[in-house]
């Protein structure tokens, strides 16, 4: 059976690529420290020696649109192109081609359907910055096949937070029942407090530092019960109008498991939003 060798949860700041590659006067003052933190975070994945990456993110109105909007979708394709014109335009992200692990996609779809998740699928999926950003930060050599899983944190009505946790638990169980002798890392990205297109956007910090502090505590301590006790679809409007992206962190808490303390935790307080990086090694330490 497959082995989940690392569970990783991260923010997906689209400006990291341009900040980290800028030189001279164009290089922002926070870039060097940001790069240092990302390189240390990257090492937590490298040390786990994965063969396959399951990548959990969310399409931001790129390929998925309101005339046919899935709640949870798994890509099942031999390849995935990335990114999109408006992400090249606004963030300077590079176009990429990723390989797919199609047999694991098929396994997650079949057994996920049987486990009570009516998963949508896509045989031709172009992926956006929610998956490309962690590839660029954590595995820039782009040498591993992926399974992309998209969640709807963006176009209401949304599934409730409990459902995101359940999805994570199910994904973990299904990967561990995949009859392949491969090492799988599960990487999911979302946001802490975030405002986009609202009056609190692009401030000197994230819009709600107190929410961010609590969120980091919930995630790093695996406190799913405490998190679900405070986080609802309604409550997530208060920290910032794009904070529903936090529910992708809740997927990863479900993957990691109840009460599982993260083995690696780091944060970086930037303008606009707080960066947050977490790694769990399910069997205690990279091996």
């Amino acid at each position, binding site marked *: 059976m497959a082995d989940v060798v690392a569970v990783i949860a991260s923010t997906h700041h689209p400006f990291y690529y341009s900040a980290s590659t800028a030189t001279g006067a164009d290089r922002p003052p926070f870039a060097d420290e940001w790069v240092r933190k990302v390189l240390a975070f990257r090492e937590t994945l490298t040390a786990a020696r994965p063969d396959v990456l399951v990548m959990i993110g969310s399409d931001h109105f790129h390929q998925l649109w309101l*005339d046919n909007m899935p709640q949870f979708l798994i890509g099942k394709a031999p390849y995935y192109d990335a990114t999109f014109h408006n992400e090249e335009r606004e963030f300077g992200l590079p176009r990429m081609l990723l390989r797919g692990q199609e047999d694991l996609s098929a396994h997650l779809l079949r057994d996920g359907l049987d486990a009570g998740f009516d998963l949508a699928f896509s045989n031709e999926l172009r992926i956006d910055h929610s998956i490309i950003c962690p590839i660029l930060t954590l595995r820039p050599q782009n040498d591993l096949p992926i399974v992309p899983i998209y969640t709807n944190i963006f176009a209401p009505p949304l599934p409730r937070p409990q459902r995101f946790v359940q999805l994570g638990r199910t994904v973990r169980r299904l990967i561990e029942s995949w009859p392949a002798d491969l090492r799988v890392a599960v990487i999911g990205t979302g946001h802490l407090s975030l405002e986009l*297109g609202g009056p609190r956007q692009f401030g000197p910090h994230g819009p709600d530092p107190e929410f961010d502090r609590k969120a980091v505590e919930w995630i790093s301590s695996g406190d799913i019960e405490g998190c679900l006790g405070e986080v609802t679809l309604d409550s997530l409007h208060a920290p910032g109008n794009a904070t529903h992206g936090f529910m992708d962190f809740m997927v990863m808490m479900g993957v990691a498991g109840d009460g599982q303390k993260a083995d690696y935790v780091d944060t970086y307080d930037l303008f606009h939003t707080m960066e947050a990086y977490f790694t769990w090694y399910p069997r205690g330490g990279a091996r």
Partner: protein
Amino acid sequence: MSKYLVNKFLYTVDRDPALVERYRTDPAGTVTWWETEQANRILNCADGESSTWQRFTSAERAALTGHDYPALFELGAHPFLTLTLFIALFERDYAEPLGFQRDYARRIGHMSLPYPDIAT
């Protein structure tokens, strides 16, 4: 209310560089053309299989024609779509990095929670 159609305008203009420039220089003409020729297109259907009933309200048409992103926010347009397109339209007019984004926040600074409902 046709929040869906406003979002569809923002989405389809944003993904087409030529349309972004056309909307920047001729918003009234672009909105009129789009509502007449494009609003009913179903993006994953052939041209002969379009819808027949899509149209803006007068407030939505005026907000789009006026490049009035505070009004779009108040009408419940999806804020990510509005922000992304308007960055493409107007960020170039500001000298400072993030200057437009901060001015955008200031112009809707009178809005408080709960924000207008964006559900479609």
